[in-house]
């Protein structure tokens, strides 16, 4: 048994590694520049500040241990800062495949940009603005027709007598560099696969090393560590889900056992139909209905039964009991919504599992021995019928945490689900992917615990090995 569990635990390691690859791969596909997300205040970042920030958070490193890319791409592409400059170079290389010429073009453009930034005040202001705009357009341009057009504009601007002494040389250099890019294209290099190896100094490695030590990175939104946001969020999600689980079990066990014992009775048939309907009832619909009708006096004063959404206000010096009542009042509706779906599921499982046990021979034996009905039902049948439910619990718990996303959103409970929802809409990717990987970890722990419980509850189960001889 212990051997099996350790083996399972070891299998989890490669699974978790693959999940981390998937998560990290998805995080590379997110829109926006992460360096801006981490360091920019309201979207603005100083020139030198960018490099410092990129270095601090490892964004000047290659993404992974190795990369598969066409031979046209250099293995130092990741060092180009900032992100939009790197994007332009990458997109240009992807079209013509001549890295050297494009580097020259890129550097000429950078030189011109710095010249344009320090033009004397005597020049016409509007023309300076036009010039800067043209150069900025070129910075982002990667389509050949677009670049041709902007370079033409730049040429005519630089040839004006006032600008000629400052820009003449730079503009013509840029033009030649761009002509070179086009004439010395090497598209063949784009067709040659090239596997590049970077070693352990990469972003994935850093990210994983951080995860192992509990460092989830920093939120783009408020630059706080993600871990400090996950903690309280996990607390509220656990409060919501644990109370729902407890409540659902408390109701499901008597309903399930009773239905199984009086199979076919009127009450059993009622419960079967009722629970089946309940099971199909979308939680977010019920939640919306409850919020719309019963948390405000919109329809009638007497219908304002429950406090509005959120967790409620608690004064700083409030006593424990006071705090509890406010929170409980606000959590009542979400817990109810989370409970009824679980209740329907558990009660059906309990009934089925109880029915199976009751038909067994050892129950007949117990009855034949003359044991009291209570003892037969609760001591012999119920305990055995509980195994499948227990294993179900452990694996269902992580799933139900993910499932409470929509309830947390509707009732504005600052749990994991609400956090994820907000993070997705504000493009706060570190939070999103931390939640994803944490969810996977919790699920795997859940599966492992359910294996453990199954083994503990039923000693006949010899997991992993065949029957012993």
């Amino acid at each position, binding site marked *: 048994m212990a051997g099996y569990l350790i083996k399972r635990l070891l299998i989890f390691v490669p*699974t978790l590694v693959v999940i981390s690859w998937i998560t990290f791969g998805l995080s590379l596909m997110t*829109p926006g520049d992460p360096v801006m997300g981490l360091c920019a205040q309201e979207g603005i970042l100083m020139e030198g500040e960018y490099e410092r920030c990129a270095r601090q958070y490892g964004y000047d490193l290659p993404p992974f241990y190795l990369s598969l890319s066409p031979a046209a791409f250099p293995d130092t592409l990741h060092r180009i800062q900032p992100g939009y400059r790197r994007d332009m170079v990458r997109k240009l290389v992807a079209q013509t495949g001549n890295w050297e010429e494009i580097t020259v073009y890129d550097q000429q453009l950078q030189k011109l940009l710095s010249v344009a930034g320090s033009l004397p005040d005597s020049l016409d202001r509007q023309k300076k603005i036009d010039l800067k705009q043209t150069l900025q357009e070129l910075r982002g341009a990667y389509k050949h027709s677009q670049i041709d057009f902007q370079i033409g504009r730049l040429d005519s601007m630089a040839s004006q007598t006032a600008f000629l002494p400052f820009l003449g040389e730079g503009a013509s250099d840029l033009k030649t560099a761009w002509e070179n890019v086009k004439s010395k294209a090497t598209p063949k290099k784009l067709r040659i696969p090239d596997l590049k190896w970077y070693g352990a100094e990469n972003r994935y490695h850093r990210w994983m090393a951080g995860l192992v030590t509990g460092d989830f990175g920093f939120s783009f939104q408020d630059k706080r560590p993600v871990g400090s946001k996950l903690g309280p969020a996990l607390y509220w999600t656990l409060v919501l889900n644990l109370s729902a689980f407890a409540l659902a079990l408390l109701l499901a066990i008597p309903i399930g056992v009773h239905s199984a014992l009086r199979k076919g009775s009127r009450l059993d048939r009622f419960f079967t139909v009722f629970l089946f309907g309940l099971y*199909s009832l*979308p939680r977010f*619909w019920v939640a919306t209905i409850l919020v719309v009708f019963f948390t405000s006096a*919109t329809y009638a004063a007497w219908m304002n039964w429950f406090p509005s959404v959120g967790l409620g206000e608690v004064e700083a010096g409030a006593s424990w009991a006071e705090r509890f009542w406010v929170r409980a009042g606000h959590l009542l509706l979400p817990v109810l919504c989370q409970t009824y779906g679980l209740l329907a599921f558990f009660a059906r499982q309990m009934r089925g599992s109880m029915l199976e046990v009751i038909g067994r021979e050892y129950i007949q034996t117990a009855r034949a021995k003359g044991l009291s009905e209570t003892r037969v039902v609760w001591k012999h049948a119920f305990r055995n019928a509980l195994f499948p439910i227990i294993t179900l619990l452990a694996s269902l718990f992580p799933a139900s945490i993910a499932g409470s*996303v929509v309830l947390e959103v509707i009732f504005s409970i600052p749990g994991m689900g609400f956090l994820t929802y907000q993070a997705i809409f504000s493009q706060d990717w570190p939070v999103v992917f931390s939640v994803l990987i944490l*969810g996977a970890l919790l*699920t795997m722990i859940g599966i492992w615990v359910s294996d453990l419980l199954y083994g503990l509850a039923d000693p006949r189960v010899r997991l992993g090995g065949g029957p012993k001889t």
Partner: protein
Amino acid sequence: MAGLKKTKGFWRTLVVERFRSKRAAVWSLRLLYGFVFIALFGDFLANEKPLYCKLEGKVYFPVLLQYGEALGLYQWKPPLVKPRWRELPYEAVVFPPIPYSATTRDIKNTHFAHPFRGQRVESMRYWHWMGTDQLGRDVAAGLIAGARIALLVGLGAMAIASFIGILLGTMAGYLGDQGLKTTWLRVMLNAGGLYLGIFYGFISRSFQISEANAAGGAPLAIFTGLLWLIFFLALANGLSFLLEKVFRLSKKVRIPVDLLVMRSLEIMESIPALLLILVLAALIRKPSIWYVMVIIGLVGWTSIAQFVRAEMLKVRQQTYIEAAQAMGLRPWRIMLRHALPNALSPVLILIAFGVASTVLAEATLSFLGIGIGPEEVSWGKLLSEARSNFNAWWLAVFPGIAIFATVLIFNLLGESLSDSLDPGRDA
């Protein structure tokens, strides 16, 4: 063989009769037909265009013409170019039962018109029976358009999930860890084919794919990439077939199919599905319900694979498989023609329950405002509008009933199917 009469199979005699004997089952099936009807013919039920009209002596069928336009066969000609359909000088006209499309904005009835009172309409013919939303769009028309989306996502996603699940489950269950033997050469060549296929299909085309994505043509670009991948894999297998013949390679290695499938299944199961769907849907730049369908399908195959695998393990032990093997049939043929069909019918149960949970997942996603395009109308999106205005109870009630009814129908179907296929289950 001439005297052999074709007997009714397992399906006809037992399953269908048992199914028909249940009231709930029969009713769920009838409701399903109704639901499918609404989804298929929604354009004829709720549309701002007339079904039939006579204008300047000529007869038109604008709803049909709308299909022609969508297929590229027809272009609107005057007087039908962007008209106000209600105000044309018709000589004769027949409007659909609900004379609004899901996206029609009734400017006289904006800001949540009540379904029972206070609507500004010329006659009861144009009454909004389920009210309107903030922009004046008819809720009943929205529900009809939503039915199509729900059915599309539900069936489409389950089709994808079933395909992957049945394929992987069959291979894992039937071949196991010992069943698939092949030469080292083929393994190496396939690995090479995969490497080249991924490179030429996706990596060297990544610029083109991202350009296509920005222009809204990502599916085609990805499909082309897949074709490249398939081409290289086919090339690798063709080459290894030839080389095996030429060099008479006979030394085989075993491919642990079951192990590989079970590991990938464990990985998929470990990532909370709803979270993964949320993240994937949020990553797509131009959201559309089609992506939601594909994503749910790609994530939802695990339970089907597990189930088919377990069934195949049972089927593999049967004597008719042994007989087929003794006859010298090829393993793929036995697997697909003899083993799989016998493991398949119980999968229907899973599919029925799967459609229910997919409809629920789609509604949840659009309720949260993730994955659905700005022009698309779905039940979850309508329901979410109720949150911004508590007064509009009709937006909270009607779409919810539609979602509940659909989920209930498919759950009932699944339940009735499992009773009919395995009557001893609950006895």
